């Protein structure tokens, strides 16, 4: 009967723990930022709140996932339950797509409209009278405020690190698919091999991304406060990088579970969810590579 029933978990401490972790994290982060923007230095109460929140959150989420895994092993999850998870993950990824869409939207808007207007072209070109020295070009090396708010000296060359990173991520999408195939025929060694390869590719990507940021900050003058080019560049690539990091971590956890002998060829939604996420992160990168780096 177990497989054809819908499991409704008993009351649980996990959600409230998560809420408390989240509010501490949020209130702490807010306090920290206000503290440093007001010129405060060193540690203050908000830092403590923040780290307590992070600890709570980590502990609770660890237990939550552990619980889900135990329940899954206990055979409590039916096929219908599995479908609930699939819908859940699918729509979650859609929400992530929309989050990135907001930043891509900002980039397009600035390039298509705001920039040219400030430079004197288009419907609101009269705005140029406020910035008589400004000439619009993308990448925006000179900002409208010119000397007060200097733009970047140079930008990242797409054909070096970014190209390499593209290759890395695309191949990692391929390796994770190989791992999936191997899982379907239950070839555990090959699953481990391909999954490990995926995680390593992800990690190398993040490593190069960090190198790129260091170069941007130290040599190119390309920073968060170098005007709208830097703003969009770092927000888009930064959120993407954070997603790669999380994705690689999730895959790493899955890898450990595989090594521990979890998952069957029929039931391995945990694996699939991680793989979906990874493909999504990969798709975002393709968008970034074209619209942020090349064009």
């Amino acid at each position, binding site marked *: 009967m177990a497989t054809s029933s819908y499991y409704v978990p008993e009351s649980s401490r996990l959600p409230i723990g998560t809420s408390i972790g989240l509010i501490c994290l949020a209130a702490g982060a807010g306090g920290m930022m206000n503290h440093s923007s007001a010129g405060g230095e060193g540690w203050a109460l908000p830092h403590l709140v923040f780290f307590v929140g992070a600890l709570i959150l980590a502990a609770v989420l660890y237990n939550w996932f552990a619980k889900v895994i135990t329940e899954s092993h206990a055979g409590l999850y039916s096929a219908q339950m599995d479908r609930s998870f699939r819908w859940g993950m699918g729509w979650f990824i859609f929400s992530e797509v929309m989050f990135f869409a907001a930043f891509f939207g900002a980039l397009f808007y600035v390039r298509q409209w705001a920039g040219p*207007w*400030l430079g004197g072209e288009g419907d*609101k070109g*009269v*705005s140029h*009278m*406020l*910035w008589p020295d400004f000439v619009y070009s993308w990448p925006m090396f000179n900002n*409208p405020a010119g000397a*007060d708010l200097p733009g970047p000296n140079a930008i990242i060359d797409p054909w070096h690190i970014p190209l390499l990173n593209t290759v890395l991520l695309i191949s990692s999408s391929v390796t994770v698919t190989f791992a999936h195939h191997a899982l379907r025929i239950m070839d555990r060694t090959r699953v481990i091999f391909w999954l490990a390869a995926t995680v390593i590719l992800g990690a190398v990507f993040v490593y190069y991304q960090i190198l790129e940021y260091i170069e941007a900050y130290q040599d190119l003058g390309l920073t968060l406060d170098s005007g709208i080019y830097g703003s969009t560049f770092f927000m888009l690539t930064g959120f993407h990088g954070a997603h790669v990091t999380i994705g690689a971590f999730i895959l790493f956890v899955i890898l450990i579970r595989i090594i521990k002998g979890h998952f069957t060829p029929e039931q391995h939604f945990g694996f699939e969810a991680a793989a979906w996420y990874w493909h999504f992160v990969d798709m975002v990168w393709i968008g970034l590579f074209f619209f942020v780096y090349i064009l």
Partner: protein
Amino acid sequence: MISRTGLRLSSVITAMFVSQSAAAEWGLNMPQGVTEVSQSIYDLHMLIFWICVWIGVLVFGVMFYSIYKHRKSKGAEPSKFHESLTLELLWTAIPTLILILMAIPATSTLVKMYDASDAQIDIKITGYQWKWEYDYLGEDVRFFSNLATSKDEIYNKQEKGENYLLEVDREMVIPTGVKVRFLLTAADVIHAWWVPEFAVKKDAIPGYVNEMWVNVPVGKEGIYRGQCAELCGVDHGFMPVVVRAVSQDDYRAWLAEQVAAKAAEAAAALGDFSHEELMTKGAEVYASRCAACHGQNGEGMGTVFPALKDSAVALGDVQKHIDVVLNGTPGTAMQAFAAQLNDVELAAVVTFERNAWGNDTGDTVTPKQIIDARNQ
């Protein structure tokens, strides 16, 4: 019952809208305004209004008829019908047609409003927290326009005047019979410049310029009042717009007067002023220009607006104090007052701040010091 009272009510409302004079007195309806554009907008407004009223009468009519006739207490038996493709198509198609009908005049009016070409006069309008600056491009005339209603009126200590909250110290002046283009921007946050009688409203966006225009017909000389229409901080409600439309001859005379007055002011700044004179004048300037942020008694407000009482700047180096007031603090609400106040006013307000509320520095700052600071 319901429908009869409803009818009476709606006839009252209709009467209010129809008889223009009643509407104007009561301030019930949109003003027709004085320009061609404002008239077209008013007509458009009334057109949609009546369309909505009639659709409403129809829909609610059927509804109240059913409520009245098809109630269980009257023994109504429910029918079973619950579908009709014909009806669905019909009540998709008819509203579509009505909407198209509305869209046509709306489009032509909008196109007209957007055509700012061929203007003969350009005035640059800049919104500040919480005042307007008018810069007559190509003329040497540029000034600020502040709320003139006193705090005592606002805080109910004095009777409110006829134009309560809608009066300024210096009005914008434009000629009639001429297309005037406004170039609108802002120095800090977003404001919106609005004069209902012109049907001109647009947002003032910091860093960008919006265009709009007005052509007040000859014979419609007069004073037109409006307000800032975009939330812009504490004193958003105290940021009126007042425009005086005058004949073209009067306009030219006014321009000449402004230029002459400016020269006289500059000459006066070179004269001598006593400490007391400066303190009196300074108190006035402070109350009208600075108190909004720094408080009536220099106590500041919240964490954003610093107190000037006992402040390091007001008690410290004079040059630093002058510098803050002249040039503002970029990236904060503290704006540059160099262009807003003349040398005497600036000297007065700085003197005042250095001696009021127990800030007993004893300093006297003269207009000449301001002129020197300006020239640095």
